[in-house]
């Protein structure tokens, strides 16, 4: 996987006015088996033009952050508390009609599975054009021209003819390109990509990541890349937020965090990435699995799986503490940072 290197200098964590600022977000699901705290007090900022990686294992609630920002949490889920400030406006105070003007137009979203995200009964031209009908006043001819241009941008050849095709006539990778085109066509300031390449072949994954990166750079939009793939994040993102059981366990600038993770969970994730230069070594795996999120243990949620866990870890929940510039971890016994 060779991606263009992260842009230096865009990681402006102290930028005066972030594009998006999430504070104390709690999204809970009230199921009959108990309350699932999918997102449990998450804070982060996103600068204009920045690419942020949200990383964690499956079932860690990271997708729910994306859906919370979009206002697409359905019963039994509910946003219990927090603030989602986007371009200075708290999205949680908007009503449904207000959110509809945000969705698609100001924030675009890319779904995990391109095989199911497109409506099977409409041509992709129709589904692409729907965005322009909803969010712009363009006349029909201009809409069509814009759709063709957009399809060409995302690398679909013969876009004029492809407009009239149905989703089932495309491969998975091509469908995801269409989904990216739909998400970007109305010119959103923020793109949320929820595991955008997980469902695709490995060979296509890098192409699509590069395409997304180029798209947000061209339009100076920001990108939240939600994934379990730390390797992809390391080549895409300016900054990384690592989540475990609905909480942030570590965050920091990408290169710094990759070189010197402070949290044992981040370390574990990094160790499980195959590397070319140490291909002979056995891959590490984090022992155990994500605990039952309905009954989290007291103290640090990662303690049961952590090699460095002490009695303190099982009793007192660690708070997120900054210990190097821009890098913070929620751990009583952090790994020594290699700066």
């Amino acid at each position, binding site marked *: 996987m060779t991606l263009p290197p992260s842009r230096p200098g865009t990681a402006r964590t102290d930028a005066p006015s972030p594009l998006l600022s999430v504070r104390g977000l709690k999204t809970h699901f009230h199921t009959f088996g108990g309350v699932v705290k999918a997102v449990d007090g998450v804070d982060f900022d996103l600068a204009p033009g920045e690419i942020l990686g949200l990383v964690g294992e499956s079932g860690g609630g990271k997708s729910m952050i994306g859906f919370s920002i979009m206002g697409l949490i359905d*019963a039994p889920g509910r946003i219990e508390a927090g603030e989602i400030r986007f371009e200075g406006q708290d999205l949680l105070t908007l009503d449904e009609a207000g959110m509809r*003007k945000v969705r698609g137009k100001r924030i675009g979203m890319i*779904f995990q599975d391109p095989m199911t995200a*497109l409506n099977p*009964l409409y041509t992709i031209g129709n589904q692409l054009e729907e965005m322009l009908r909803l969010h712009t006043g363009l006349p029909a001819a201009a809409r069509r021209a814009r759709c063709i241009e957009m399809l060409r941008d995302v690398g679909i050849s013969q876009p004029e003819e492809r407009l009239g095709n149905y989703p089932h006539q495309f491969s998975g990778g091509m469908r995801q390109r269409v989904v990216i085109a739909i998400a970007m066509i109305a010119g959103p300031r923020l793109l949320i990509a929820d595991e955008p390449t997980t469902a695709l072949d490995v060979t296509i994954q890098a192409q699509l990541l590069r395409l997304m990166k180029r798209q947000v750079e061209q339009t100076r939009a920001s990108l939240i890349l939600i994934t379990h793939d730390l390797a992809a994040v390391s080549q895409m993102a300016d900054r990384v937020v690592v989540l475990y059981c609905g909480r942030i366990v570590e965050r920091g600038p990408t290169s710094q965090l990759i070189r010197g993770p402070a949290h044992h969970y981040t370390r574990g994730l990094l160790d499980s990435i195959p590397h070319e230069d140490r291909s002979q070594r056995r891959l590490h795996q984090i022992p155990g699995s994500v605990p039952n999120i309905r009954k989290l243990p007291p103290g640090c949620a990662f303690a049961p799986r952590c090699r460095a866990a002490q009695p303190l870890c099982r009793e007192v929940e660690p708070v997120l503490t900054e210990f190097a510039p821009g890098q913070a971890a929620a751990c009583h016994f952090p790994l020594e940072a290699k700066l």
Partner: protein
Amino acid sequence: MLGYLLKRLIQMIVVLWAVSVLVFVMMSFTGDPTYMMVPLDATEEQIEQARRLLGLHDSHLVQYWRFLSSLAQGDFGRSFVFRQPAMQLILERLPATLEIVSLAMAFALVLAIPLGVYAGANPQRAGSRAVMAGSLVGISLPGFWLGMVLIFVFAVKLQFFPSSGRGPTQEWLGLRVSFLSWEGLRHLILPALTLSVGTLAILMRIIRAEMMEVMKQDFIKFARAKGTDRRGVLFKHGLKNALIPLITVFGLMLGDLIAFATLTETIFAWPGIGKLLVDSIYRGDRPVIVVYLMFVAFMFVVVNFIVDMLYALVDPRIKIK
């Protein structure tokens, strides 16, 4: 495409042939039609002669062959009662039946689609539960009894509508129809409403179930993420997907309507093919019963064929081979 059409045509012929066998076998068991043909005071010789004329002395196989070849030649026999070709009787009364069946289907669709979409999109709301309870009542009540209650309330007591008959008809596209005049429409409303209730209830439940299934799909959430409004999500992205399975049951629904039209037409004295069938059963008018069944079977076969074509037309994923 041509191969598919040919295959379907052969299938249709096989089904019609099977129906002809069944009809013939059943009719051979229903006793002797000779007594329908002869006067009450007929002598033994006259009866014997009538029997010979009807060919009842031949073996069943020969009789069946004669039956089949006359069907193939377009000779569907003559009514014992009306003394005219049975097919002509059916065709004369067909427009009346088609009229109430179409109107009943229209009633059912117009009400079932919005109600089913509402109940499927908001399954927890009290309104949806009321819709579901109502549809269960609709399935549980005997349609003919509902028709009687409507007659009693709206025709006998309130006298809003006439209690029976078809009223005046006009020529429209070569058919005699009654919906063009106010008086004709007044005659039409109660029977069509009665007929539609069962279909309405079933359609509502099917649309609700399909909507519930469709609303869980990713593309619905993606449509919402695009900023589509509620109506667009429900009707553009949801309903069209929910209606595809409905097309497959359309043929069955139509069949049920034609079947229950026999009861509705009997109650309202509506001069359609359903009432003709019931009257013919009372009078033992065998040729008419036979032609009715063959005709209805033919109709169902054609409707099912059209439905399959429609299915391929609406769902781009299906290609006819």
